[in-house]
């Protein structure tokens, strides 16, 4: 899906845990995430710490979208 959306010229960031697969399927902007069942969360953390974690991950995604890349890059 990532590649096909990017083909329209829309920058897309893949937030995924198994980044080996992200690379294989051709994502260019990748934000590594926490775990498969909760990529942008962590149920073992307290509510505000978990929110802070999610904010930081989303921030990284926004940085990725605003950064020029020439190939695979991690944020």
């Amino acid at each position: 899906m990532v590649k096909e959306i990017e083909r329209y010229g829309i920058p897309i960031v893949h937030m995924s845990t198994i980044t080996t697969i992200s690379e294989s399927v051709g994502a260019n902007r990748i934000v590594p995430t926490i775990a498969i069942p909760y990529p942008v969360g962590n149920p073992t953390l307290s509510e505000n710490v978990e929110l802070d974690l999610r904010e930081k991950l989303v921030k990284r995604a926004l940085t990725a979208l605003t950064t020029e890349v020439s190939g695979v890059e991690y944020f």
Partner: protein
Amino acid sequence: MKLELRKIKVTDLALGNEMKFENGLLTIDPQVIIDGLMEDVNVKSVKVDIAKPGDKTRIIPVKDVIEPRVKVEGSGNGFPGVTTKMEQLGSGVVNVLSGAAIVTIGDIVGFQEGVVDMWGEGAKWTPFSTTYNIVVDISVVDGLQPHDHETTVRIAGLRAAEIVGEVARNITSDEVEVYEMGSIFEETNKYPDLPKVLYVEMLISQGLLHDGYIYGVNSQKILPTLIHPNEELDGAVISGNCVAACDKITTYQHQNNSSIIDLYNRHGKDINFMGVILTPELTTLEGKFRTCDYTAKLCKSLGADGVIISEEGYGNPDSDLLMICKRLEDSGIKTVLITDECSGWDGMSQPLADTTKEAVAVVSAGNVSHVVNLPPAEKVLGNPEAIATLAGGWEGCINDDGSMKCELNAVIGSTSEIGYHNLTVKLY
């Protein structure tokens, strides 16, 4: 270690007023199973039924399949660490009701379970159409959390296998299989010229309905570990019930792991089979790197020349499979992988989620998205509507006459990645 599996051939199955075995006929008293399972306060009700090969019966949704056995000599009857006290498995004498199986059913989360057809078209796709099945439908008390629900159903299935297995205690067997292997040094001294082979069995370790257990320890919590093949054949590894039914390794398939048995058959002939490494498939990238490195390290430390790696599940575990492969091949260890594929309904899609050029020898156990058409059943054990919410079923796949379409995804054991069934994929 020396393990004797005394196979008592079950050739017929009936419900009756007592538990007994006579001339191939296994008779089941449902009340004995029900009473045994109701001892668990979380179990609300239990139904017991039977399904024989050739019956026009559909079983759905299947949670697990377990072989009924009893240990008559040596330590560790039942499933130590789970249903019985902790004991070392792998040695002794086990009486096996060979050809019989406990099949557990019952809703857990409302999706993701499996189908077994005992006759016709559907029978071809699952190995559990040829077993005499004692079908145990387990309902739990209201308000149980999903993880506790799963535990209750898992343990009830194992208990049912123990209860039925007791029938075999004083039966003499027709056939004895002996699995015996000394220490790695002893075997290597015996067969100094044979290539040293390990079996890496990957276990999905990803939460509810995606877990496996070793002596009761959730495989999520382990580092890759070496076990003697006999321990698995003796019940050390069990399934935490299933999701995508096609390639979840049921407890029955652990007890009869075909990769272990086929490697054993070559031991001392073409290969020196040294043991089994159980490797969890985790949900974090760090975890995957750790377990893949660790698995490769174990193989190297043990001096393996060749390794068979079997996957469990598809999607993200493809990445673990290929990472282990790459690490081993890069160290000069030859690998063969067993996996299945997601090539779409038409078979035109890329089969795996990941790729590595080092994977040059791969056995394919079938396309999980292959669509099969199943005729209406005369009798349905479980809930036929469940197919619409199964992994591999979809809305509108059941017709009014009861016939249905589904992907192999929903058929239990169909694309077994320990190579238990006989499907493959050819390029057309």
